[in-house]
């Protein structure tokens, strides 16, 4: 089960995630939510993962998949507050080269302005 709370800061959407992003539990929910945001024209999304307790290979794949969708539509997806265990998972998958990861929400939001 994945809970998603949406916060808007200017042109940036921060999604506060709570729960698991795993096969059959969270992966589809995240995809559907981000597709909805893309459909509404949002192109700057931050996933606050402070309260994501577990990420499996399907969830990891889903993060990659939504990142690619965002970039193809001219947008960008950034990660915020990932736990050590999720860091380990992304490290194993060697995905740090493709994701921008932040520990401070204000910095993550400001980085979109720097991307302009």
């Amino acid at each position, binding site marked *: 089960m994945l809970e998603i709370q949406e916060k808007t800061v200017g042109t940036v959407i921060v999604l506060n995630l709570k729960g698991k992003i795993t096969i*059959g539990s969270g992966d589809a929910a995240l995809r559907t939510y981000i597709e909805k945001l893309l459909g509404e024209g949002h192109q700057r999304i931050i996933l606050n993962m402070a309260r994501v307790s577990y990420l*499996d*290979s399907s969830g990891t*794949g889903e993060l*990659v998949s939504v990142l690619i969708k965002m970039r193809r539509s001219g947008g960008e997806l950034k990660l915020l507050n990932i736990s050590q265990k999720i860091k380990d*998972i992304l490290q*194993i*998958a060697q995905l740090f080269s493709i994701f921008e990861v932040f520990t401070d929400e204000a910095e993550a939001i400001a980085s979109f302005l720097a991307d302009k």
Partner: protein
Amino acid sequence: MGTGLKVTLGSDLKLLDTAKLAFDDFMEAIAAGGEDFRYWCWVGIQEALANAIRHGNSGKPEIPVEFDIETTGRGIRFAITDRGKGVVLEDIPDPTAPENLLCPSGRGFLFIENAMDRVSTKGEPGSFTLIMEKDFGGK
């Protein structure tokens, strides 16, 4: 022979939570391994069960997946058995290769390999078993 547990599940991803409860109860009962040990055990188990359900048994709920846990002298041995044709581990593409890095799938076995100390397979006609061992004090 060590302490063991055998759980038979239908091929339904919703039953991963049932398997997790059984695993947690077993670990509590044997009072072994810290939080990290248990976390990485479950990383391997969850990926192996999901593969067995989705690929081995093609997600058909009526086909069983067997989940065996047994303590060994130096750690715990997990065996996941489905009714599929199985895979040759060496043939699984490397998901960290540059050409595969952006693929949305194909990382399950990578996570299993990294979570466990040893991984092997046993195949018979109509049955495929993935055997994973994690040592106390291992990686």
